[in-house]
């Protein structure tokens, strides 16, 4: 569904460096990284909102060569709704819907009802969660195949977050649609993501299935004097605290060392993100 190959984008002080990942149909991918890791830049590149190097394909269509085809198939949700603040939701449906070939007015009003949004309400009167729901209603009403969400749960209460996660799960049920959402809330990933791509300082630290990621790394702690130079190369995000240390290591590499010398525990997504960032700094 979404294929990104060698995506590069450079700003002053930041570089998105050869980012590549693949999201198949019928799955949800979480795009994770700390603030400034390049998540929003990746999303803007998918929508061809900014110049970039590399190749991005959505459903086999290049996002530059077939820009209109791609944009017809992609629905975007960002932190604030991007409709005129003076519009009512009815006007949003009327004027924004006109841009889409597959716009379904009935679906739009049904979704507004389902989300508890009044068509007479103005965009400026919407809360944060309502704004996200409005954008979802628009995206789902034009039969988007790929939903791209930029930190949709940021600032939402747990109930709203849970509702949003349910909507996304429902969206991929038919196996033809996919979701890419950027977040730094690991609980969301653990709940619904099938795939995870971790960005760290503009580079891909990991991309692949979430379950494999959860089984791939351990947090290792112990006596620093027992860490030799060879082991140091395999440790990720090594931090020394007096005589002790902590770091992350892949389970495969850890087997090469004396497992009784150290304490380990399985790394969660948050841990992977933290230690990946430490290794870059």
């Amino acid at each position, binding site marked *: 569904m979404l294929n990104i190959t060698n995506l590069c984008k450079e700003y002053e002080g930041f570089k998105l460096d050869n980012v590549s990942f693949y999201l198949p149909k019928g799955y949800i991918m979480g795009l994770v990284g700390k603030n400034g890791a390049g998540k929003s830049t990746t999303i803007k590149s998918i929508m061809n*909102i900014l110049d970039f190097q590399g190749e991005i394909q959505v459903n086999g269509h290049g996002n530059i060569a077939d820009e209109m085809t791609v944009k017809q198939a992609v629905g975007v949700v960002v932190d604030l709704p*991007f*409709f*005129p*603040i003076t519009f009512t939701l009815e006007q949003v449906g009327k004027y924004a819907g006109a841009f889409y070939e597959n716009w379904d007015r009935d679906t739009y009003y049904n979704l507004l009802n389902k989300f508890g949004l009044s068509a007479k309400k103005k965009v400026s009167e919407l809360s944060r969660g309502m704004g996200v729901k409005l954008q979802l209603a628009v995206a789902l009403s034009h039969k988007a195949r790929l939903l791209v969400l930029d930190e949709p749960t940021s600032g939402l209460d747990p109930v709203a977050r849970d509702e949003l996660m349910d909507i996304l799960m429902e969206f991929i049920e038919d196996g033809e649609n996919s979701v890419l959402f950027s977040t730094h809330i690991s609980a969301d990933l653990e709940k619904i993501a099938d795939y995870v791509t971790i960005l760290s300082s503009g580079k891909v630290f990991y991309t692949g299935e979430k379950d494999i990621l959860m089984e791939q790394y351990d947090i290792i702690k112990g006596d620093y004097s027992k860490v030799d130079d060879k082991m140091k190369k395999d440790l990720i995000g090594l931090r020394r605290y007096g005589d002790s240390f902590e770091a992350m290591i892949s389970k495969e590499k850890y087997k090469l060392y004396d497992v009784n010398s150290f304490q380990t525990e399985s790394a969660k997504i948050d841990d992977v993100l933290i230690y990946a960032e430490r290794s870059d700094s």
Partner: protein
Amino acid sequence: MKGVANVVKMDMAVCRKAMTIMTLSMLLAGIFCLFFLTPLLLGLFVVGSTAVISVIFSIENKSNMEFFYGCFPIRKWEYVVGRSITSFCVMAIPSVISIIFVQIGMHFSLCRNEDVRTIMEMTDKYQMVIMCAFIMLGFAGGANLLLASYVGKIESREFLEVVLLLVEAAIVSIIFFIIQKTVYHGDNQKFVTDMTGFFSKHEVLSCVLLIAVGLVFLVAGAMISLKILKKKRI
């Protein structure tokens, strides 16, 4: 072309309230200007239209709409052309309505041409400049009512904008006054008088020239805008 039409429809929907207020203001201005200077109408169109255009851009800027035009299936040239057409309509629609109203007013003897000439002869140029300043200040104030209406209430920032716009209008009026006191003296006066006399006698040509210049600015602005959008991105 469907994309262009959609952009125009949406922009016009954004500024509908402001357009209604401005059109009504233009009608009142048209009637008012019957008793003073009919060519001043064109200046008022610029003031009012600029206010409405700024309302559209302000609302869209506040609404995060660069994402809208980036994410929605609309080509950059469609966006630029649509915005240009909207800008033209914003000026053209109330202008045409006001001109029609002025013609109706003149037909029903609210102000005949000879009355205007008589008033012009009787009124000192200094007084006319003051009247121009009054009209411009009044419409600057009206334009800022538009700002206040979409903001909802007048806060200190918007109040400052009201003051700034009034100051701008006052500066323009002062410039008119200075020009009248300097350009209209000595040898310059004959040249200026000849020029103004020519345009006064050929009002249709004056309007056509102004519209042509406006169209040139509109097209140039659209082309520059498209170039910037293509090059810079968000």
